[in-house]
């Protein structure tokens, strides 16, 4: 027997995240490491449990191995409960054919049975590529109070940015009358955060209808939302004013990590009332040696620092040897930065060895031509020979070995 749930969350975690290039070659985007000891998916999962939602379906498709392992039984997020909990939902074979998830809406459609088991009044649809802290229970209250059929969380963005987002045009009460996907000339600055609450009976109907439409791309933004609007359903914009960042690109991933070091950015990871949970690697506290210099940085368990670390985020078990310099960079779990190496404005993915005197990335101030500047990326499990050079903007494939540059 399944106990009735007021609200079930469905987390879309199947996307490839192709704009993260080598970082998502062997890894689904929600499993990309973030912020020293997290993976991106820790944020929506922790938000769920902190908001009182303990039934979460995670829709996986692309490279799910790491993600599946990581979520496991959901214990780190207190989602190992018998009445609900976290469920990994991959595409599956049916008596009549088998389909991959063809779009965000189709992914939910294929799991209608999963949702129906809990007989929920509402379904919360989330994506696994955003960094933010949000109390979904307040959004649900808003949805109920307004008697809405669909509530979409929105964030005020600048006019310049607005054309990169799905923009909601709403009246003074917050009721949405128009939705434009990435408009060239935006009429408002309310950007969709990709967080939806639907009344389940309504969504269920629209999913089934949309599935029957051969021309549909089976996507929430492109099909379900416009269809509901056209049919005159009550669609509300729920204003959110906290920190929210889409980390779908190398630059935004780098920036979002750097935001953690900025005291003016309103994303507090040290709030004991709203912890972000993660699976713990079980390493001892980090060690800072005599002669090391660490400032403006986040460093986590298992690291050993002998060199200089400034404005950087170091994940678990990273070693920075004597004379090595790590500045304005993100170094993911298990990396070794050998003596004399210089890592600046870079993302070094998991388990890399950066050889002696390597130069990875460069400061924009040191560039002659700024157009050639960008964050350098070293793919996971790379072992670079001493003296290798990775240029700014360069994306080194995972498992690169030998001398580079």
């Amino acid at each position, binding site marked *: 027997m399944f106990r009735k749930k007021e609200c079930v969350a469905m987390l879309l975690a199947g996307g490839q995240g192709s704009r993260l290039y080598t970082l998502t070659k062997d890894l689904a985007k929600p499993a990309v490491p973030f912020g020293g*000891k997290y993976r991106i998916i820790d944020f929506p999962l922790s938000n769920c449990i902190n908001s009182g939602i303990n039934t979460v379906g995670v829709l996986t498709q692309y490279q799910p191995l790491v993600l599946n392992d990581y979520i496991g039984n959901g214990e780190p997020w207190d989602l190992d409960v018998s009445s609900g909990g976290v469920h990994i939902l991959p595409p599956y074979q049916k008596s009549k054919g088998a389909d991959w998830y063809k779009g965000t809406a189709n992914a939910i459609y294929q799991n209608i049975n999963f949702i129906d088991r809990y007989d929920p009044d509402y379904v919360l649809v989330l994506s696994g590529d955003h960094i933010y802290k949000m109390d979904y229970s307040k959004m649900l209250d808003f949805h109920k109070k307004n008697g809405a059929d669909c509530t979409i969380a929105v964030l005020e963005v600048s006019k310049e940015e607005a054309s990169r987002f799905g923009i909601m045009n709403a009246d003074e009460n917050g009721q949405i009358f128009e939705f434009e996907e990435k408009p060239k000339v935006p009429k408002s600055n309310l950007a969709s955060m990709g967080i939806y609450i639907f009344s389940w009976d309504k969504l269920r109907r629209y999913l089934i209808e949309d599935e029957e439409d051969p021309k549909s791309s089976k996507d929430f933004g492109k099909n379900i939302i416009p269809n509901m609007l056209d049919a005159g359903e009550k669609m509300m914009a729920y204003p959110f004013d906290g920190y929210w960042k889409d980390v779908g690109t190398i630059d935004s991933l780098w920036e979002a990590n750097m935001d953690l070091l900025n005291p003016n950015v309103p994303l507090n990871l040290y709030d004991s009332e709203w912890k972000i949970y993660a699976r713990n690697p079980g390493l001892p506290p980090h060690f800072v040696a005599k002669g090391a210099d660490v400032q403006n940085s986040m460093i986590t368990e298992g690291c050993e620092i002998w060199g200089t670390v400034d404005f950087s985020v170091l994940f678990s078990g990273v070693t920075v040897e004597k004379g090595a310099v790590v500045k304005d960079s993100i170094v993911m779990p298990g990396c070794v930065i050998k003596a004399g190496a210089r890592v600046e404005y870079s993302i070094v993915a998991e388990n890399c060895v950066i050889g002696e005197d390597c130069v990875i990335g460069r400061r924009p101030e040191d560039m002659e031509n700024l157009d050639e500047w960008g964050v350098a990326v070293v793919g996971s499990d790379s072992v670079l020979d001493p003296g290798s050079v990775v240029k700014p903007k360069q994306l080194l494939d995972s498992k690169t070995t030998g001398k580079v540059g």
Partner: protein
Amino acid sequence: MANGKMMGIIFSSSHDEVLRELTEKRAMASVPFAGRYRLIDFTLSGMVQAGISEVGVITKEKYHSLMDHLGAGRPWDLDRKRDGLFILPPLGYRASGEGVYQTNLEALYAIEGSLLHSKADYVVLADANLVYNMDYTELLEYHESKNADITLLSCKYNFVKEKYPDNENIMLFNQRAGRVSDIMFSPSDNPPSNLYLGVLIISRKLLINIVDRAKSANLTSFKRDILQRNPFDLNIITYNYKGLVRPIYSLKDYFDANMEMLNPKIKNELFQKDRQILTKVRDEAPAKYGLEAKVINSLIADGAVIEGEVEDSIIFRGVKIGKGAKVKNSIIMQGTVIGKEAELGYVITDKDVEISDGRLMVGYESFPVYISKGSKV
């Protein structure tokens, strides 16, 4: 290869009296160590690594903090349907009447039911005042190969009475013809060169037998009445442990063992990647360093926010060190907040201490200042 199946019994309050300050509100087993651990983590993790899946923790008093730490045993994969972790509360059985048990042997009378119920071949009995990362299968293999009744875990040790003026329970012995002999407790001169580490292995059946006989004979102390006097003429041998081990017999021992973790070689011998020391997870964010942070030769746990200077110190989870503060040669436990411009040297602050801005507190290397849990200074 060892054949037998082991179970573990940990005496959580062994040697409580030697860390009077730190054990005022907790058992020895839950004394914090090295930034994020409790002493019991070392014994418990070692047992689990050795394939022991049945561990009893004998409690005596002040065990609230220990229970909180252990929970159902999940961090050590001991939350199991078969076997798993079981906490044995002090049942109050005493050979000499009512009340909480006073000695290990009395505690064993009280848990005889658990010993009878187990299906293990051997029992590892362990005190909780040790810092080490041991594979107990070594002990089992040695014990089986020598056909002994009891094998004591020991190490070479240079005992100096002056260092432990108040401790009468440090057990030392010599070895003669492969057997343990000349057992002495904290002797004033000519100390034997082997230290009993408070860990032994014995067959479960023999242990039950000894417990029964000891009860009839009104014996109370395992170390003195069974091991030292050896009334049952047991074949007691010793396994000399050569790995890193730090027994804690005084506040100074505790301080020094923590500070040794600042030597990466020692730290990495204790915390091995393929033999992890497991502990309760607190879900702290990574440690954060401010603009004027300066850290030299220190261990910093997650959740710490460092804005001042830290040198030769151990900083636990969630500690805040204010701007301009200077912390040297100190152990700062979980949740402590050190105000701006405060200066600390040779200080141990227990959990959740608040040090006001500008305070100056200095102890000595031989006598660190201790500040009790939750104090405001």
